[in-house]
């Protein structure tokens, strides 16, 4: 009896053995309900093609994703593969696995990706995540409002002044309250305008040595935005914008005639009960075209116990297969793998060509480990004074130059 028992035990153990080398991977991402289908499809496609792999999905909303990820990584735990932005900060804390060796070993076509995007997913020359998308912005406009005002629709010839003139004509007041603003834009878009004016925040966005935002090219651009809010009164203050539900809600509810924002809005603007279209971003006064480059990517946990399986999944997720699924999804993201013809062809979003063209003008916003602190402590408070009209751009930004320079020297 005893023998029989041990025999059956042994055979049971053998059945659990390496015949089914199950590998389990944990994959984490954020997204609102409309953004989730491509992630889910990639996971199920990969599982179908690799029956020996089980992928456990951890989804969190944007608002809580990083709180949880930070806690998990601090505990040396967390998902094997995860969706990530702000890569240098995580890389500097040694929480991301450097990917260059994996890429060389498996001949991963890294050359087909947006060059600018690759830069912000790196730290000190090492790549730590593979970009999924680029987030260029464009000018959404309410066609009905333009028709009613007798204005020509925006096109590629528009510069800053054309945009402002139209915004002035489209702004409507009712009993002393602005019932429709000419223009809204995201509160963190200001670097685009500085670069369109030939200026910048630092001499280099990735390896900065000098703060140059106090130079006229930069302060002029900041002043231009400040004037749109306070002098021309054609754009709401960013605080008011936030309280009114952001660019999406202001535009959809007809309280803004133009909105500068990214392709993620294509879906939610479908709710609008007026005709709208998308135009390229206006260019600088000397014709300079700049758009923001960036977007999120996928990284591998440095503490993962299953790195080879994780990389195998990443090749699918980040490569042509995954990129094609993301590009053809309803809530489309402008693909990062722009050098791949199949991926480009799959990107059929409305006005997709405009976004792809804008993607070519992409330039990086500052992205280095100490930048978050510098923004929070100095740049944002100075900008807030300009947005509120309390100080002009030159005064506000000159006054932080010394502090930022000091801080920058410390963080390097």
């Amino acid at each position, binding site marked *: 009896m005893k023998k029989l028992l041990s025999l059956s035990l042994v055979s049971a153990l053998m059945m659990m053995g390496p015949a089914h080398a199950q590998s389990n991977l944990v994959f984490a991402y954020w997204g*609102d309900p409309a953004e989730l289908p491509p992630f889910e499809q990639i996971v199920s496609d990969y599982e179908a093609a690799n029956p020996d792999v089980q992928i456990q999905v951890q989804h969190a909303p944007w608002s809580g994703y990083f709180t949880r990820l930070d806690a998990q990584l601090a505990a040396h735990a967390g998902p094997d593969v995860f969706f990530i932005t702000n890569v240098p900060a995580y890389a500097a804390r040694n929480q991301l696995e450097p990917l260059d060796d994996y890429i060389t070993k498996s001949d991963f076509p890294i050359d087909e990706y947006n060059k600018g995007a690759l830069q912000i997913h790196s730290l000190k020359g090492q790549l730590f995540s593979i970009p999924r998308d680029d987030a260029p912005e464009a000018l959404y406009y309410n066609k009905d409002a333009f028709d009613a005002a007798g204005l020509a629709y925006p096109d590629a010839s528009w510069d800053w002044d054309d945009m402002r003139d139209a915004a002035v004509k489209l702004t409507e007041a009712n009993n002393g309250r602005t019932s429709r603003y000419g223009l809204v834009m995201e509160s963190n878009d200001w670097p685009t305008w500085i670069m369109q004016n030939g200026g910048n925040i630092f001499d280099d966005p990735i390896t900065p040595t000098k703060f140059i935002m106090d130079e006229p090219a930069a302060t002029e651009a900041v002043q231009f935005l400040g004037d749109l809010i306070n002098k021309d009164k054609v754009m709401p203050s960013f605080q008011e914008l936030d309280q009114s539900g952001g660019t999406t809600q202001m535009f959809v509810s007809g*309280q803004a005639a133009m909105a500068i924002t990214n392709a993620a809005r294509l879906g939610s603007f479908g709710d609008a009960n007026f005709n709208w279209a998308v135009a390229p971003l206006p260019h600088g006064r000397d014709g300079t075209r700049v758009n923001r480059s960036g977007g999120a990517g996928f990284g591998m946990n440095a503490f993962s116990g299953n790195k080879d399986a994780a990389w195998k999944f990443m090749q699918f997720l980040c490569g042509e297969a995954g990129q094609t699924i993301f590009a053809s999804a309803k809530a489309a993201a402008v693909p990062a793998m722009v050098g791949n013809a199949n991926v480009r062809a799959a990107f059929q979003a409305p006005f997709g060509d405009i976004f792809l063209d804008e993607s070519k003008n992409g330039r990086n916003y500052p992205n280095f480990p100490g930048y978050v602190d510098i923004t929070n402590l100095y740049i944002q408070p100075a900008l807030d004074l300009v947005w509120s009209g309390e100080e002009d751009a030159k005064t506000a930004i000159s006054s932080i130059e010394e502090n930022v320079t000091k801080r920058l020297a410390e963080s390097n």
Partner: protein
Amino acid sequence: MARHARKTRTDWVLFVVLLVGTFATCGPFAWMLATSIKPGNEVFVFPPTLLTGQPQLNNFMRIFDTIPFGRSLVNSLIVCLSITLAQLVVCSMAAYAFACLTFRGREALFLVYLAALMVPSQVTLIPNFILVRNLGWIDTYQGMILPFAFSSFGTFLLRQYFMTIPRELLEAARLDGCKHWRIYLWIVLPLSRPALGALAIFAFVSQWNNFLWPLIVTTRPEMQTVTVALSTLQGQYNTDWPLLMTGSVLAVAPVLIVFILGNRAFIAGLTGGGFGGR
């Protein structure tokens, strides 16, 4: 007559003040209710509408399809009721020790205990997470419940209340042969119903609203509490406000029920415990 008129006048002033307070308190709830049935493009129009022309009652069905909302309600109920029960037991026993027993170093120990009130939860978040993870309690009910089974605030509240119970009563019980267990169970607890009711409401409501801990210790949708489930409706760029408000309406309901049931004990506990306001 004159006195009567004066009385009516003060009544009216009081009435107006209370009315303003009522509107200020109920305003957000009214907006939440109104938004929950609005079409998406009507949420932020100006002037704001209270009643929409096209009520979207199907939001109340849609929410159950979009996220596992029913399951999250059940999870929240399990977690919150367990924590409430645990806190009532643990805090009342600790409070009994601090209020009714005499032992060396009692006051010093109580001070240390109170110091725990001053430690912000953000500080203990990561250590707690590491502990729970090492116990293998990620995605489990015990992982959500046990870290909150004790509360220094609850102990403080109950201890203050227990101190008001006349010593003579406890001594009489002891003369009649009661040991501590009996005094605790048969004398102290029944006399402290208002304070226990207040603690129960505090515990339930604060846990019902708790977001950070359930967020980081759950990774699977089927273990999420209602706050975490609702937050998944909020995107980086887009938020379905009507659906979010629909969920909020449904999420507020249990809290409202608990409050109505425990209301009388709650108010008696606040005023009677010498603990006004907090």
